[in-house]
């Protein structure tokens, strides 16, 4: 059964839609990469999925329910890591974790065990009582990642996670993702770091001008672009050139 179903979704900020009849699915245990040029509609897609925007048409289901059917169950099924870390300046790192645990109804024991492991993994144990104003961009990102992973939902939605993280942070993140996948969770990850996407993602969705330009495994994509040996980087560039060609034609 698919964890996330995006069905013929058309939507945008104004009446003029940014997304046009978007359709894709994410199955259990899948890590799916969402890639596309700036302005292709990645962030808008994510905003629709997390329920911050309502589609004009079509529907989105997480764990089999739409947002309007049950906001609580819908939200409980995923956690989200935004592109820019959004922290509460007035809460310490520990309080961010506690707040998340309270919101998602974790027990104290579960909270203690999970947070201890995450703090160790991301090397933030010594910063429990720090406020965000003292964190670097990468540390702020780590706080967001830890909060999202603390919840252990069935779906992780991660927007451009690698910017600002140091190499060890990136490795930890990828290890965590692999581990969660092994335990049955799914991940939707938007990124511009294509070699990483190519290496780690089970499937890739290429967005272009608010439509799904291509989706599937690397082999599927190579076939779709008719470039049998190309890397994801090369496929991406060729898509750009295609667009230039369209613009000049």
């Amino acid at each position: 059964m698919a964890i996330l179903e995006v069905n013929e979704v058309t939507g945008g900020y104004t009446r003029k839609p940014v997304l046009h009849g978007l359709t894709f699915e994410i199955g259990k245990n899948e890590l799916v990469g969402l890639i596309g040029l700036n302005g292709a509609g990645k962030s808008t897609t994510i905003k629709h999925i997390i329920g911050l925007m309502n589609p004009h048409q079509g529907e989105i289901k997480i764990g089999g329910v739409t947002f309007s059917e049950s906001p609580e169950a819908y939200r409980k099924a995923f956690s989200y890591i935004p592109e820019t870390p959004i922290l509460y300046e007035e809460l310490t790192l520990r309080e961010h974790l506690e707040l998340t645990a309270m919101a998602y109804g974790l027990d104290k024991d579960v909270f203690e065990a999970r947070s201890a492991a995450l703090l160790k993994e991301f090397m933030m144990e010594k910063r429990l009582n720090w406020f965000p104003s003292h964190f670097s961009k990468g540390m702020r990102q780590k706080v967001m990642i830890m909060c999202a992973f603390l919840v252990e939902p069935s779906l992780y939605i991660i927007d451009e996670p690698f910017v600002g993280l140091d190499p060890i942070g990136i490795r930890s993140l990828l290890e965590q993702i692999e581990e969660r996948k092994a335990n049955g969770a799914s991940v939707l990850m938007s990124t511009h770091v294509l070699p990483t996407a190519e290496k780690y993602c089970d499937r890739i969705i290429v967005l272009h001008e608010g439509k799904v330009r291509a989706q599937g495994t690397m082999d599927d994509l190579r076939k779709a672009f008719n470039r049998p040996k190309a890397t994801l980087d090369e496929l991406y560039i060729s898509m750009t050139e295609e667009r230039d060609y369209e613009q000049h034609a």
Partner: protein
Amino acid sequence: MNNMREIWGSRFGHYMTELQKYMKFVFTGHLAIVMLFTIGAGGYAYSEWLKEVPATFPAALLTAVIIGLALAIGTPVTLLKPADIVFFLPMEGKLKGYLNRSLRYSFISQLPLPFLLFIVAAPLLAATAIAEKPQIYLTAFVILLVKWLYVDIDYHYRHANDGHGIWKDRMVRFVLGAVIIYVTLASNPLFIPAVGAVIVIYYLYWKKRSNEKPFPYEHFIMLEQNRMMRFYRFANYFTDVPHLKGSVSRRAWLGFLMRPAKFGLTTPQRFLLTRTLIRTDDNFWLWVRLTALSVLGIALIPFPFVIYIFSGALAFATSIQLVYALRAGNDFRMDNLFPEAKDTRAPAIRKTVSAFQLVQAAAVFVTAVIVTGISVTPIIVTAVVIVVSEITIRFSDKK
């Protein structure tokens, strides 16, 4: 735009629009009413006190000290921007035209404070028979001259020392300013030129020293940014100022008010909001200020009826501003995504502000008992605070 005078002109235009934009909110805000009450009550108490002030009261000394302080404080308004450190660098020679205008404006904008204080002090000086009319005019003229020199001294001192140790300069100027005001009031006109000469020598010394140094862009830019931040923070009490990053303090001494996390099926909003209220400087000091004002009012206002109105108005101002501050903004917060069947934030805001207003009510009650003893006044004023707060919180709830 190479002409530095033009640059000052256009920046000054922008600055004035910005000031007007926010001052509009300041003068129509809740605090304006409170200020009106305070000034009214203060003025009344002052005039009553003037009727019976003893002739031996050290009015001249007090006036000299207060005016001296008002003369010594104030920072230059340079309207410099961070990018100037790059773009103005090749034009340092032409900076003078820009800075002269900036100092002229600084002088004009700093003049009202010592003058207003002097106007307030004038009836006291008359009541204690210290100063006659000509002397009042002479003092006003001295204030004008001293402030004019002080704006320049402040600038040259900062220039010469990269802004370090400005408090030393302020101490010196405070003492000189207080002395010259005192000798003017105490009818020692001969001493005026003597102290005046010292001030002029002090001015010339720092002017010479500053000429030996390159212009310290970093200091003046930082000064300007801090000044604007203070203004925005002030304006933020009355309206939402975009891009204003409210500063946050841990306030560990209030830790006992911030209950620890409760796990299991709880709503985290109170956990979050209590911390937001206590740790965000703007919100917290707003509450402290308005509560202190309420307490002061009870201590100083002699009529119970006026106390009820005063404390009620403050309870209204506090509750409504806290509710708005906590609700603030359409920015995305992570709690927007928390799995909850219904909105738990609005009721949590109500409860949090209610709890804070109960503390205000308690402060009011204790003060009223101390001032009036056990009577109906403490009970009524406390009831007024609680009832007004609750009504305000409930009615401001609707978006």
